[in-house]
């Protein structure tokens, strides 16, 4: 299963190679992978239907107890099938929708990487790997929303989505760490079978953090605003990430943790509250929109709210409704988004009020839209009807906030019927309207998705037992944490849910009939909506940019002196506090000092003194060199030849670099006032004094047995080397060294950029930090980073 999940990444790496070979058939070739994966996952259906959980283990980082173990149960399988099946059609769709786009290869690479990340997310057993995949979906989503990167709005929307979901991701990480502390394990399998997590003192904090992650990802109110903005992405992306799969990751996480974390009072209060609110807000904002994709996006917000609400209710019916609604929504919403893309592609407009009578020009699209729309509206004989009846039944059977949830569920159902009619009927029926392009039927790769997904809605609607047995029962059982018997029926008899459906149908039809007037009357509320959560987001971003500018001005003002004193004083305060208050300092003067050592030390101190006091640059350089060579001498005296050699070489190198810049440096004048010099002297003395104390303390106490003895002993037998320093560098602590050479490379790039790329000559170099995230242009970010301090080079010695 590891290969199955990671194959998306592998293929993504190969796509640039394939693109030159396969050329125009690349989309088909790429679509083969999700198709094959779908078949492969479907092969597990019999075992999962029988209630089994399949575990494929692989230790990834055994030292940290992080495994790449994948678990396939009902819930994961349902998600995996949705991801791969819809993925197949999305890749096909994209090959026609984006045909001839110059960046098509990049699109496939990112979309494949997304698919693999999403699969990893729903199959991971370890919380850590789940989190890694979670963040990968955020990043790939960011890249896909901003796919048309020349478009400033797309970039802004991409960043907004990234900030909201990654910000929530931070909360999620904290929640996961707490969860692991509560349960003593990072493995979901072990966490889920534990009892009594809800009595743990950390429960509330962990729950709130986890909800923070889930709610931002799944666009719950008040974080719902990023999702409609994400519609700046190409339509295949909207259909795949922002309706069928990624936005459901938050709901997936809640469903996954439901057996361990659910069922408490606070869970049953928060989830229905936020879920129901999101549901209504989504439906309400949908009816105000005229863009096809916005309509669909808001109705997705509504569906995500519904799923959260169902998880909050937590009864057996609610679990069944959850699984059914999840399946139903992915099928019809995936189809409708592809229809929306086909409409946009064919007519050249996204505005639903400008379309009409397209039935004749686009008969297949119209039929698919009708079926999927009926399913969205929740009308028989579509699977959406089954799901909606279950939803009503579950909501009526809830325990907390009953009046609130039932009212909002009914109101949302009314609005959603109108929304469905607007999408499925308005563009296709009535008088033919003039559109920017002459409408034509979409190419078949763009039709395959809507037709098959809509047909599945119909098949599962007519034979609800099929969906129930195949997918819903196992999924609902995993969410509930215990086996549930599921029997889905199209016809429930005349009962409360059916009456609610009838009522919502009538009102919904009325709203659709009077849509234009309805929308106009709603426009009274516009000022209020403009002050909604999105305005809060911009406020926060404003604040962030302000803080960044402020801290750049204060801490990173380009003066080396300033950096050094800030770093050193932080060190002195933190370490000094710990040293003096936690440990006692013993003055141990009983040291065995030889005369020649004293001479070297005397030389060192004298040279340092001269370096501070001298009035010529060459004098300063020479005396600093003397300091360096004295240190090298000390290294040699204490039998560390490698360090000595390195020190000498670094000193030499410093001279070389200095010679290169010597003639460019400004005159060697005193840049600081006596007061500043006094302050700097205090900082220097404090740091030096503290270091001395620290080293004496280190000699004094041995808290842990010294590791150097182990290294001395094991260097020859384990690493076949007699030079311990080198053995440590390239063997014992090779990972550190690897990190360090990467840091070296980064430093080289930084210096190169500073010297070679002059600001203002490259396109885009005048971009300001705030311009991408804020709606307004007049940001007053202090342009501090380009300020150069003439003394920076002078003091920037290598250590």
């Amino acid at each position, binding site marked *: 299963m590891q290969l199955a999940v990671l194959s998306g990444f592998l293929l993504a790496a190969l796509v640039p190679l394939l693109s030159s070979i396969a050329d125009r058939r690349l989309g088909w070739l790429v679509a083969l992978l999700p198709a094959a994966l779908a078949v492969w996952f479907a092969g597990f259906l019999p075992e999962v239907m029988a209630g089994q959980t399949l575990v494929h283990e692989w230790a990834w980082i055994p030292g940290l107890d992080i495994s790449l173990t994948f678990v396939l149960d009902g819930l994961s399988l349902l998600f995996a099938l949705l991801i791969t099946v819809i993925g197949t059609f999305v890749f096909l769709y994209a090959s026609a929708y984006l045909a001839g786009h110059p960046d098509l290869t990049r699109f496939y690479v990112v979309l494949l990487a997304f698919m693999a990340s999403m699969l990893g997310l729903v199959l991971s057993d370890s919380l850590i790997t789940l989190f890694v995949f979670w963040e990968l979906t955020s990043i790939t989503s960011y890249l896909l929303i901003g796919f048309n990167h020349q478009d400033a709005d797309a970039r802004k929307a991409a960043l907004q989505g990234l900030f909201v979901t990654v910000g929530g991701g931070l909360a999620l990480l904290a929640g996961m760490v707490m969860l692991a502390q509560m349960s003593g394990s990072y493995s979901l399998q072990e966490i889920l079978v534990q009892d009594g997590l809800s009595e743990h003192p950390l429960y509330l904090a962990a729950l709130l953090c986890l909800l923070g992650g889930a709610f931002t990802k799944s666009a719950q109110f008040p974080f719902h605003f990023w999702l409609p903005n994400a519609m700046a992405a190409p339509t295949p992306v909207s259909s795949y990430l922002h309706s069928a799969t990624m936005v459901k990751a938050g709901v997936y996480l809640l469903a996954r943790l439901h057996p361990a974390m659910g069922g408490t009072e606070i869970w049953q209060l928060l989830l229905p509250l936020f879920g129901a609110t999101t549901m209504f807000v989504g439906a309400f904002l949908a009816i105000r929109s005229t863009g096809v994709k916005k309509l669909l996006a808001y109705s997705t917000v509504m569906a995500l709210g519904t799923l959260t609400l169902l998880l909050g209710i937590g009864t057996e019916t609610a679990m069944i409704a959850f699984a059914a609604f999840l399946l139903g929504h992915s099928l019809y919403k995936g189809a409708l988004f592809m229809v929306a893309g086909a409409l946009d592609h064919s007519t050249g407009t996204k505005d639903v009020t400008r379309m009409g009578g397209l039935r004749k020009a686009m008969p297949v699209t119209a039929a698919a839209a009708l079926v999927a729309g009926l399913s969205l509206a929740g009308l028989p004989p579509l699977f959406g009807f089954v799901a909606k009846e279950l939803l009503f039944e579950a909501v009526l059977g809830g325990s907390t906030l009953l009046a609130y949830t039932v009212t909002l569920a009914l109101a949302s159902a009314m609005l959603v019927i109108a929304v469905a009619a607007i999408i499925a009927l308005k563009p296709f029926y009535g008088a033919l309207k003039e559109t920017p392009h002459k409408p034509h039927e979409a190419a078949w790769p763009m039709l395959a998705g809507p037709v098959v997904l809509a047909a599945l809605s119909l098949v599962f609607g007519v034979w609800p037992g099929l969906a129930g047995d195949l997918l819903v029962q196992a999924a609902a059982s995993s969410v509930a944490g215990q086996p549930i018997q599921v029997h889905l029926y199209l016809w429930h008899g005349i009962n409360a849910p059916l009456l609610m459906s009838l009522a919502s149908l009538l009102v919904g039809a009325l709203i659709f009939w009077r849509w234009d007037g309805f929308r106009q009357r709603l426009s009274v509320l516009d000022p209020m909506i403009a002050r909604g959560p999105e305005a809060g987001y911009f406020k926060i971003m404003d604040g962030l940019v302000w803080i960044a500018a402020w801290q750049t001005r204060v801490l990173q003002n380009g003066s080396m002196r300033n950096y050094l004193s800030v770093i050193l004083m932080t060190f002195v305060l933190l370490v000094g506090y710990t040293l003096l208050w936690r440990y006692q300092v013993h003055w141990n003067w009983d040291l065995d000092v030889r005369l020649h050592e004293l001479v070297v030390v005397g030389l060192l101190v004298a040279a340092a003194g001269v370096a501070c006091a001298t009035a010529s640059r060459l004098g300063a350089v020479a005396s600093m060199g003397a300091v360096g060579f004295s240190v090298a001498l000390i290294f040699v005296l204490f039998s560390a030849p490698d360090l000595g050699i390195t020190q000498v*070489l670094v000193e030499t190198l410093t001279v070389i670099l200095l010679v290169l810049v010597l003639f460019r440096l400004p005159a060697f004048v005193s840049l600081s006032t006596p007061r500043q010099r006094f302050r700097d002297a205090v900082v220097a003395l404090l740091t030096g004094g503290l270091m001395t104390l620290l080293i004496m303390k280190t000699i004094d106490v041995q808290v842990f047995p010294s590791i150097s003895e182990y290294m001395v002993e094991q260097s020859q037998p384990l690493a076949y080397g007699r030079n311990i320093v080198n053995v440590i560098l390239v063997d014992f602590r*090779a990972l550190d060294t690897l990190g360090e050479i990467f840091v070296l490379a980064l430093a080289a790039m930084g210096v190169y950029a500073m010297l070679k790329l002059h600001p203002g000559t490259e396109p885009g170099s005048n971009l300001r930090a705030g311009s991408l995230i804020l709606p307004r242009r007049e940001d007053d970010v202090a342009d501090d980073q380009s300020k150069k301090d003439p003394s920076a080079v002078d003091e920037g010695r290598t250590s």
Partner: protein
Amino acid sequence: MMKPGTLILYAAARFLMPLQLMFSVFLLLRGHDEPGGGFIAGLVAAGAFSLYLFAFGSELTRDLMRIDPRTLIGWGLLFGVISAFPALLQGQPFLTAQWWPIPLPGGVEFKLSTPLIFDIGVYLAVIGTVMTFVVALAESEQV
């Protein structure tokens, strides 16, 4: 910048540079048992190239090095990363050292190993980084 055309510097650079480079390779290879190793060797080699640069200028130094210093950094990182993978193939943790000693005539053994490959990576990365500094500084001087 220094005045070019100093005879002593020319001669010194021409004779010292190859010696320094050989010495750096010597340091690199002996590093595991005696003082030396990739980092020190890299600094010595960079010193050799820098001396050449002082004598003959950055153009000729680039020609001498054949590979752009920035590319050299990339090769260094690549060697470092490659050396980490043989362990994975053996099912051992990332970066576990692997040894393939090759006996040479005369009873000596050439200790081919992933730490050696890694050290070569460090060597190249250090040369690349220092020479990127030096060449960039020298060239910014000419503008």
